[in-house]
């Protein structure tokens, strides 16, 4: 038993690494953040994978050392204790090593942040943008305002159209979001499209995504916003650029028609 126990963490480590690299298998979110909707979410998941492997190595190292000490130096096997009070060189060495690891993780992460935080203009797809009906004014970037309130998200599109709960966005076009709130603090989060950004009254948060394929991406408010916080869901429907152009024009027409009908009946 004693000969097997120290090897278990090593087996666990190999399993973790194998599991982490097998991204399709781990895509369910068991070990890695959600990915597959937008490049920023994918890049976060890649960064996370590297940090997770380093973390696993540190954790397994500490656990193995501890398990070894507990098994090897139990009083029945080790009747006398060595009276050691410290070892300055060893202590300096491991402090430097720990600092080195932290500096490495920090520097490595910092090199990855640019591509996560800001959309790469070179990757923009002008053809998709013009198909989606986005003019040159936004440099091919679609700006959508996201407004939180108890307990529904509202989306405002550049042509004046509005939608609630479901955002419709074109595939292949960089979408930038300006996130704010009308009442309490909320948090905008669609896991497959990147990290969450808080909607705080009086402030505007910014983030972006670029949808890679058509589909439905679900999420929900991530900041406690009152009793129905759990029901404040959101989804992004990714559609072809031409379909987006048709949808947003139709949405505008419908809203205008509804406004006219309301005004006429007054």
């Amino acid at each position, binding site marked *: 038993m004693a000969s097997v126990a120290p090897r278990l963490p090593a087996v666990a480590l190999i399993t973790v690494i194998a599991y982490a690299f097998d991204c399709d298998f781990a895509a369910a979110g068991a070990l890695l953040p959600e990915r597959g909707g937008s490049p920023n979410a994918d890049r976060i998941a890649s960064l996370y994978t590297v940090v997770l492997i380093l973390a696993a190595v540190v954790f397994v190292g500490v656990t193995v050392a501890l398990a070894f000490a507990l098994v090897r*130096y139990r009083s029945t096997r080790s009747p006398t*204790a060595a009276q050691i009070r410290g070892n300055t060189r060893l202590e300096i060495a491991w*402090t430097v090593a720990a600092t080195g690891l932290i500096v490495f993780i920090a520097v490595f992460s910092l090199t990855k942040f640019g591509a996560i935080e800001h959309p790469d203009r070179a990757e923009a797809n002008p053809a998709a943008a013009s198909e989606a009906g986005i003019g040159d004014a936004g440099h091919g970037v679609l700006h959508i305002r996201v407004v939180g309130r108890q307990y529904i998200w509202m989306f405002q599109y550049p042509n004046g159209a509005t939608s609630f709960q479901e955002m419709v966005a074109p595939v292949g076009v960089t979408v930038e979001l300006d996130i704010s709130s009308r009442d*309490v603090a909320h948090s905008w989060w669609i896991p497959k499209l990147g990290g969450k950004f808080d909607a705080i009254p009086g402030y505007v948060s910014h983030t972006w995504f670029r949808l890679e394929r058509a589909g439905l991406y679900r999420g929900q408010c991530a900041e*406690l916003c*009152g*009793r129905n916080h759990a029901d404040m869901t959101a989804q992004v429907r990714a559609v072809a650029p031409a379909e987006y152009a048709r949808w947003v024009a139709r949405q505008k027409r419908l809203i205008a028609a509804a406004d006219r009908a309301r005004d006429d009946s007054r």
Partner: protein
Amino acid sequence: MSTRTSLDVRIGTGVPLLVADRVDPPTRHGWVGWVTTTDHKRIGILYLVTAFGFMALGGIEALLMRTQLAQPGNTVLSPQAYNEVLTMHGTTMVFLVVMPLWAGFANYVVPLQIGARDMAFPKMNAFSYWMYVAGGIVFYGSVFFSPPEAGWTSYTPLSSGPYIPGNGTDAWIYLIHLTGISSILGSLNIMVTISNMRARGMGWGRLPLFCWSMVAQAVMILLTLPVIAGAVTLLLTDRHFGTCFYDPHCGGSALLWQHLFWFFGHPEVYIMILPAFGVISEVLPVFARKPIFGYKAIAASSLGIAFLSMLVWAHHMFATPLPAIALAFFMLTSMLIAIPTGVKILNWIATLFRGSIVFRTPLYFAAGFLVLFTLGGITGVMLAIYPIDRQVTDTYFVVAHFHFVLVAGAVSGIMAALYYWFPKMTGRFLSERMGKLSFWLQFVGFLATFLIQHSLGLSGMPRRVYSYRADTGWGVDNLISTIGAFILATGVLLTLVNVMWSLRTGAKAGPDPWKANTLEWFAPSPPPAHNFDVTPVVRSVEPMRELRRQIRTAHRSGDGDE
């Protein structure tokens, strides 16, 4: 009179002594004695008993939430009741359980460890305890009216505006005020006691490491609790007197609250965990029969953590609109704090190396602490990387992270402290069999509850949701987590049963049952009201080692022996 004889023996060996020059008034018996006491040991026990009572309440609240979440679409709790229970659970565990439990252990142990007769300000000490009780009563009184439901962080504008009916948030504010007074005065007392009342020869370099951790904790409490006291006062005036500190519609800032809250809130994590570091630093050398490895590094890292803890608060706010420079600064400081913490863990493991480890229950909890707290610390470094944080903050990943730090960290430390010092407090051992079973139930139950929650968070489950849909696929993980919570609760309950059982029937312990290193073991178990008949002069970090040797030699030389 065997104590008399052994005292004569000690005097006979030439151990330099301070002779007590006061005789205590007779102790009052019964409940009047407990209510009017200013004895640090009785106040310590009052803290511990009250806080374990609140732990039972906080635990029931946790189980209610886990039962509600056991399967999708459950209806055990309404959305309103869920938010109330979640607010009560977090607030209870932080302000009414972990902080007062450490106040209890510190009250009992610190004066004994430094060879003092009592705390520096015994009446203020009693006042601190009763302020804590008042805070608990005010807070739990709200259960009969409208409990708070804005979470233990009470974010504005949800807590400041007209968004929640009822006055529960005010009860929460008064709890912060009252327990804040309790903690600030308590820390002042600890600071003055440790600064001025150490036994002769106990320089700062010979101060026990538990006392060092309490010094670091007192610094953090004195610097950050006034900030939260001010912040909740502004919240109170916003709620009732028309001020606009947190209301963006009239010039206030909803984010100001988050800055003030976390300026306190992050050091608060270390306020809860540092005393556990102190306990681990006491327990490991005793049960490894070996001096602590790197005394100075451990003491210094406690102070380093206390300092850095006040420079990391905005890592709780990475999803809010912060300038890039602030994001980078708080990421780096948050990572930096892993260094003193990591140094401690390595020192602890080195303490075990080449020792002669005796496997008693306190050591089990200390070893469990090392494994699980390391994992919580590592996810802390991951959370410092802000794009990663934005994927996992406000999800069950964070819930898992801080329970690894606060349950596997602080509560394991509390369990180790309880099993370690119970013989001193009562004169009897806790049952080892029940203790070890309790440890394994807590260890396995804890892992089942919280390890799986990392995955829940990664797959998109936000924290503080009263329910979730079946098509999210979170049902199985939540069920495992709920089963784990009940196993964990059984483990804690077993320790409480152990305490009740061992009070009457536990094996007699004697003054120094563990062959420990510090002065509390020089006093009888339980110590008399005045603690020590004579206070020895301290010549090292482990004064009890020399005292044991001297007493042994005196016994062997024979004259005047019983």
